[in-house]
């Protein structure tokens, strides 16, 4: 299966900004931040089309997101995921002595994941952040 080695960027989008106002657990919010913007040519190479699920992986983990064409392309080898709990799953916490983890410009890999589903926020929390109890 083809894999894309890419640079992962995260950031704000106006959708993420407005939809979060409907509540973090709303479906609208989930839809606005579980996307991965990929260059249209890269999508072809990966064999995915708009709205297909993809797996995005870094050295800190992986997450399933929905592929969308990045606007105003070309942006070869650059992928964009809006801030949010899904993007955080694959962020590295090393700050190199600055207090700031590398939240933009991480090396990442993208591959198609047609069988996988995008977790809901509750499922995500259940899976990755289960509370330990004494």
């Amino acid at each position, binding site marked *: 299966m083809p894999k894309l080695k890419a640079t992962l960027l995260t950031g*704000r989008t106006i959708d993420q900004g407005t939809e979060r106002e409907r509540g973090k657990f709303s479906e609208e919010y989930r839809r606005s931040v579980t996307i991965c913007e990929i260059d249209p040519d890269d999508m072809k190479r990966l064999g995915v089309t708009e709205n297909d699920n993809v797996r995005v992986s870094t050295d800190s983990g992986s997450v399933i997101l929905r592929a969308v064409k990045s606007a105003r392309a070309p942006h070869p080898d*650059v992928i964009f995921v809006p801030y949010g709990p899904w993007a955080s799953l694959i*962020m590295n916490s090393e700050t190199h002595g600055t*207090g*700031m*983890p590398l939240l933009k410009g991480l090396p990442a890999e993208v591959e198609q994941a047609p069988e996988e589903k995008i977790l809901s926020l509750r499922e995500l929390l259940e899976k*990755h952040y289960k509370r330990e109890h004494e």
Partner: protein
Amino acid sequence: MTVISHITCPVCGDFCDDIEVTVEDNVITDVKNACAVGAARFLNYATHRRTKPLIRKDGELVEASLDEAIRKSAEILADATYPLLFGWSSTSCEATRVGLELAEEVGGVIDNTSTICHGPSILGIQDIGISSCTLGQLRHRADLIFYWGSNPWDAHPRHIERYTMFTEGRFQRSTWRKYVSRLGGTVTEKRLQRTANLLLDHHPPTPIETGQGLPYTMFQKKRKMVVADVRKTRTAEAADYFLQVEPNRDYELLQAFRMLIRDGELDVEEVAGVPVELLEEVADVMIGCELGVFFFGLGLTMSEGRHRNIDAALSLVRDLNQYTKFLIMPMRGHFNVTGANVVFTWQTGYPFAVDLSQGFPRYNPGETSTIDILRRRESDAALVIGSDPLAHFPKKTAQNLIKNPLIAIDPELTPTTLMADVVIPPAYVGIEAEGTAYRMDHVPLPLKKIVDPPETCLSDEEILRRILNEVRRIRRKLN
């Protein structure tokens, strides 16, 4: 029905203060002047808020009285050896003042969200200084607007309209008309191109040269806009010059600009994917302007180089002042993250990442900053206010956060409140409670109370004050 004007908008760092809202029966029914995000905040804040405090018992969050929740919070903090108090950028300065007193009382580390947004900018400023201003200065005088690694169109939707390109100043006019006609031109051109492609079944279309500085700017003496970013954003599309930077290479580009400004020659053909010829042209525009401003965003602070990107940007702007007037400003995210820095600084001398565990302020991001403390798993309790670290911190740090007792003061249901041990929903500051907040350029403005909060909800300030008093009571009893 009442209409209230001159409301400040508690969303982004632009902190617009001209919002008009309509209130009917204590419910906001209409919002004017706000951007989409601001309007969504005013209209939706109440739809998914919580009103009752919660305490985790036997693994489940159950409703509790406010007194119980306050007592439990105080116990957690009073017991801790290295508690962390995080958030502060979405609350009032008044609440932050009490928060600092609380942090000092419990001997904790207090940190605000700039630690993961513009913390690197502050580190840069501490090495270089900063040549900055309030936003009106730019509105009146700036004829060159440079956005680097920031996308106001999405993150600060009214920024361009209120403070830069599309605003009328004493010495500078708005470029709105120019933009509209150009946008029209571009759309028409694109449409023609598409039709031509369909008809002629040609090779792939050649990209239209809108951004690389030629047709529209040649005779333009008015305001100019330059955008440097790793992606072509909507903001970039509106620019006179767009520099598409290879990811993580901003530092090289900034330093190259500094060298060009000094009239130096570069030994290379391109820097960070941008041809040196274009850099030289833009450098000339920078030197030639009457007053230039350099806005930078998280594109610089969060990518490789971090504070050194800012170091280079601040140095570039400082150097430019030998030729013309040049100013620089970070695009701050939350409506009061600047205020959090301001209050931290006047009380402790340091703007974020302040360790008060030894009874006096210590500061060293990388050592005393939230992400590092959590990564190394040093803290043994935490209080989070007006922030959602579980949604936004890298996974490992967020996982470590919930390995210890966690108090969350937040009106909303968020991943953090869902995982906390104590949840106290406060009155929404800027809607249900008043206070002070600082715009991104350090201009302080009042947060307003527009509607009454639910009966069970106190302001952040009052909640913190009560926790502080309770901690002091516990301490007195122990002695």
